[in-house]
């Protein structure tokens, strides 16, 4: 008990303790803020990818696509672990306005909006048709026209604060979409003729997925129209991918494994049939693997930041070490007194470790509280800095980031607090050991006072 009492008193009554305490609190504050922001960004990015893809993708990178998708969809829809399935046509296209001479390259995605919204978050990304996804491809100004949904960054410009200036209702605009249809062998289907399939679509809505790459390059088209444009609507129809959503109680890895097993069996059954060789290019991937090249880059940045802050932690260990070294030097008399009343070496180490633990705990508490307060106001602080000094953490006209993430992740918080306490204990260990080794007669001698 005396260890706790003395630890508290050392912490409160020794000014030098405040230095270590402040170092811990400041370090925790910085790490909480930075890790919350970066973890939030990574989490949002992953969530947005998950929402955009669904749980699992059975698909091919080949622009030719693969056949017999309807048979496979029918089969997996019978499985008890499937919530929804959506066939998707993906390809590249050239797009230009009706009165424009300039074409731009885009990616097109042919989907059935209702089915796709059951599997992904597509419906939520819409602005005008958010509440009626079935009309996503029906322009409000003329529902009979073939509509298209445009990635928001292709259509609207963000202001300095990252907000889009949405129209009250979609403006009438015609987009000419040209695709190069391919044969099952990957050759141009219209070689020697006009090469491309072109169709006019009318702007019906924007899609804001929160993924910069997607929102700036994708145009969503009605599924069958996209199939026709890409030359996939032949006698044996083809698609690029099947997006799947699992029932809520199904674990991602388990679900993907089951789909992969079903796909393997399906491919075996289709062997020898027409265009069956296209099935060999198909892979079954979880959403994480499907978007790995994008997610991995973010995770790498997060890892690098974590390493950088681990180095900050090492600095804290050193500060705590120096402070404890000084405290122990000042407190050698106390060690002698304690030993004269029967306190053991282990008890002395425990006393200073308890002191270090309290320093870590209280420093963390103050750092976390400060970090929480700062994060609570971080967006307002950024707004203030932008309005008065033109400073912005991320240029919103360039980065697809809305508000700065400010929700503290409990797991991250626990790791930070445990690390801070661990750093204090590590910094205090050597001085504590040194104190434990002190002989009482040396410290209580008159010449030592």
């Amino acid at each position, binding site marked *: *008990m005396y260890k706790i009492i003395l630890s508290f008193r050392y912490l409160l009554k020794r000014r030098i303790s405040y230095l270590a305490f402040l170092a811990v609190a400041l370090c925790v504050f910085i790490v909480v803020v930075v890790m919350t922001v970066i973890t939030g960004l990574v989490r949002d990015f992953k969530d947005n990818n998950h929402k955009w893809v669904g749980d699992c993708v059975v698909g091919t990178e080949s622009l030719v696509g693969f056949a017999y998708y309807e048979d496979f969809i029918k089969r997996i829809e019978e499985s008890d672990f499937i919530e929804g399935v959506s066939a998707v046509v993906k390809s590249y296209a050239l797009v230009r306005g009706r009165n424009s001479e300039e074409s731009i390259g885009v990616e097109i995605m042919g989907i059935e909006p209702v089915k796709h919204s059951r599997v992904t978050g597509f419906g939520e990304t819409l602005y005008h048709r958010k509440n009626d996804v079935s009309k996503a491809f029906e322009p409000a100004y003329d529902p009979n026209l073939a509509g298209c949904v445009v990635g928001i960054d292709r259509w609207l410009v963000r202001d300095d604060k990252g907000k889009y200036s949405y129209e009250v209702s979609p403006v009438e605009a015609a987009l000419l979409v040209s695709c190069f249809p391919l044969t099952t062998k990957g050759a141009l289907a219209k070689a020697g003729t006009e090469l491309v399939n072109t169709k006019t679509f009318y702007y019906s809505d924007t899609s804001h997925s929160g993924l910069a790459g997607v929102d700036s390059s994708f145009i969503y088209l009605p599924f069958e129209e996209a199939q026709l444009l890409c030359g996939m609507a032949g006698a044996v129809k083809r698609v690029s991918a099947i997006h799947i959503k699992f029932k809520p109680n199904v674990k991602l890895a388990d679900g993907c494994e089951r789909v992969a097993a079903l796909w393997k069996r399906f491919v075996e059954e289709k062997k020898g049939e027409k265009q069956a060789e296209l099935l060999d290019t198909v892979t079954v991937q979880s959403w994480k693997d499907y978007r790995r090249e994008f997610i991995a880059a973010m995770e790498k940045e997060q890892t690098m930041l974590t390493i950088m802050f681990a180095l900050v932690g090492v600095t804290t260990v050193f500060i705590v070490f120096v402070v404890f070294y000084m405290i122990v030097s000042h407190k050698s*008399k106390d060690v002698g007194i304690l*030993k004269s*009343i*029967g306190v053991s070496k282990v008890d002395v180490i425990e006393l200073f470790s308890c002191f270090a633990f309290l320093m870590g705990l209280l420093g963390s508490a103050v750092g976390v509280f400060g970090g929480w307060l700062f994060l609570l106001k971080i967006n307002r602080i950024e707004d203030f800095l932008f309005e008065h000094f033109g400073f912005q953490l991320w240029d919103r006209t360039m980065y697809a980031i809305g508000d700065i993430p400010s929700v503290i992740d409990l797991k991250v918080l626990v790791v930070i607090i445990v690390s801070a306490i661990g750093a204090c204990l590590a910094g205090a260990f050597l001085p504590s050991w040194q104190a434990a080794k002190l002989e*009482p*007669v040396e410290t*209580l*001698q008159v010449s030592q006072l």
Partner: protein
Amino acid sequence: MEIDKDDFILKAEGLYKSYRMGEAKVSVLRGVDLAVKKNEFVAIVGASGSGKSTLLHILGALDRPEKGVVSFEGRDLSRIGERELNKFRNKMVGFVFQFYHLLDELSVLENVFLPAMASKSIFGWLGSRRWARGRARELLCELGLSERANHKPYQLSGGERQRVAIGRALMNEPRILLADEPTGNLDSATGNGILKVFEKLNRAGQTIVMVTHDERIAQKAGRIITLADGKIKRKGAEA
């Protein structure tokens, strides 16, 4: 612990101790023999540097001799382990130092019950806290410090601090009280007050070994032992 047949509570035989001072080796104790009976009040006198404090530290197991044996109630202290030695310092011996050596961060009351707290785990302490506080208050009352219980050591006079140190030394009802120049840092009137406390304690049956360089103060003890050149010169007759 078994009691020695000749009723000595503390016995030292052939104690040797030396220190290194640079290249030179300084012999402080050169074959000291000493025996203290139960309920005795022994004063060890000697000039500065004669080895009095070293002897006291060895008797209280704060230091180890290079040669020789210290036995407490018949038990050789050099043969007991670290854990038992800590227990011995906590339960059997009470130290009073010249410079009081109180913990500045604790109140007077906490300083007094510190030895009781140090020997208990958190749960053990929670169980005996009430008793320990009561005992500490009782001691402070006997030492005339009831009003000072919640003060900090730096708020007390030298004499008061030394009385707090005595209270702490007596907290666990030790078999022997070892005092190293207990009046050395006090004026004569305050020092006399401390000696009166010792006399009172001794009358109540407390065994005391006191180190002092002042013959006048040593006269208050029942027996005087003089230490010179690392050896015991003369053993005083019992009072």
